[in-house]
């Protein structure tokens, strides 16, 4: 039987994604100063869901750039566009015609999208309009939390499904440090101590004994300390 799709359109809030925050406008203004024709380019995936890189933000940012230029008595033509995904060649190839006369593109996709653009269009200056922050999702309206560090060696099976690599300030492997109090992390009262959460989760699942085992130092060879990382899915690779 085909699995149900659970009405994806209405359940956007449950997406795991790359979260990005808007760059301060001053910084954007500085990057774009001197350019006469600029395209603000959004992305229809992750950054649309987190309200920083979608069509709506393209329109807002373009208006802001036009206004700033006007106030300074500069002539700037600002185009607006968006792709479904800036991280796939076939989607950004469609942009070619639109940006061909531009001096600069302000991409408000994540860092992956910005680089796809830079690699595809080496003659055009591509600037980042957002700061890509983490892999995570909204836990409630307007609030986003990191959930995954992309360590390449997932240990969620032993930690009650909650990740200490990305959610513990010190990426501890052997339980909460001495700074865990009242369920909060010592680093910020706003941050839950994930090891406290893991403890409760394992307690509920009657698996607390798991926490008595000494976990050896993590092997970071698959982690971002060893970037750039590459993944190959053999059966999808086109034979040359």
């Amino acid at each position, binding site marked *: 039987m085909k699995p149900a799709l659970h009405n994806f359109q209405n359940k956007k809030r449950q997406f795991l994604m790359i979260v990005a925050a808007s760059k301060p406008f001053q910084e954007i203004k500085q990057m774009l100063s001197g350019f006469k024709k600029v395209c603000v380019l959004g992305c229809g995936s992750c950054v649309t869901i987190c309200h920083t890189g979608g069509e709506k933000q393209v329109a807002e940012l373009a208006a802001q750039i036009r206004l700033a230029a006007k106030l300074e008595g500069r002539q700037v033509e600002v185009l607006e566009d968006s792709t479904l995904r800036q991280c796939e060649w076939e989607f950004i190839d469609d942009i070619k015609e639109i940006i061909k006369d531009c001096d600069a593109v302000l991409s408000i996709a994540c860092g992956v999208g910005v680089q796809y653009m830079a690699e595809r269009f080496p003659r055009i200056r591509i600037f980042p309009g957002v700061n890509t922050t983490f892999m995570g999702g909204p836990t409630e309206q307007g609030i986003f939390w990191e959930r995954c560090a992309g360590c390449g060696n997932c240990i969620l099976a032993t930690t009650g499904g909650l990740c200490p690599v990305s959610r513990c300030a010190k990426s501890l492997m052997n*339980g909460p440090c001495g700074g865990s109090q009242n369920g909060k992390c010592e680093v910020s009262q706003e941050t839950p101590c994930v090891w406290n959460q893991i403890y409760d989760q394992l307690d509920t699942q009657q698996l607390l004994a798991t926490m008595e085992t000494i976990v050896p130092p993590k092997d970071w060879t698959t982690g971002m300390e060893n970037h750039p990382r590459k993944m190959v899915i053999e059966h999808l690779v086109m034979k040359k």
Partner: protein
Amino acid sequence: MTDNKSGSNLEKLLRSGKFAVTAELGPPRGADRSVIEKKASILKGYGDAFNITDCQTAVVRMSSIAAGRIVLDAGVEPIIQMTCRDRNRIAIQSDLLGAAALGAKNLLCLTGDHQKFGDHPMAKGVFDMDSINLIHMVKTLRDEKKFQSGQELKASEPRFFIGAAENPFADPFKFRAIRLAKKITAGADFIQTQIIYNVPKFKEWMKMVADMGLHEKAFILAGVAPLKSAGMAKHMKHNVPGMDVPDEVMNRMTTASAAKKGKEEGIKICLEVIEQVREIKGVAGVHIMAVEWEEAVPEIVQQARLYPRPAV
């Protein structure tokens, strides 16, 4: 708990069953060795070994290993503190070989305060491993002559009396004795606890520890610290991670501070805590953390009738 693994005085003393006293000696924020020599001369004879902190609260200070050597030159035994915040496993092992070659025999293994608390919050925290991993690495170097990678150490191995910290006042409370057990299994020979102001809670924790027989596997030193003023008590209660300062202590310090007798009251409270914890089963010594107030240590040790320190 009889074999002496490191040859340190602290280890000899604890293994001979004597009640130990350790205290803290913070290195300076500068390159002046005379500051350390002065602190060492104040503390000499008033403890069995002294913790040389490793950039505590993530503030840049002189290296704990370098300061430890200066302390040794002054005739005082150091306990080198080593954290996982600023070094990966390569750097830690390298520093440990160096520390051992310079004569260090005691090592306290810590994860380390988060860089956010210090003077360089923009720094990259390393945390390649945690304190439990660090303890095990030090033990493996010493007892199996192997590096963390598993490669054999073919030359002389660093032989440390391995210390660890534990905070009985952190959460989840029930996990705190289990975490101690993990540290001891990993290789900790002695434990220094977080500063105790809440004695009943410490007793409760020690009962769990003793029920698990952990006090027979490692020497547990109870952490104490004299308060200077109501302001310091407030700071400890609200800003220092993992601290438990009961209202009674807060009130006593507030009253005393108002009468300009904060320091006296702080020392009095500290002495009361020492009196109470030394009666608790499984407590093998005290660790006095008089931060930037080394002068208080001789007074506390004398008044607690822990002076003179026994020769071993």
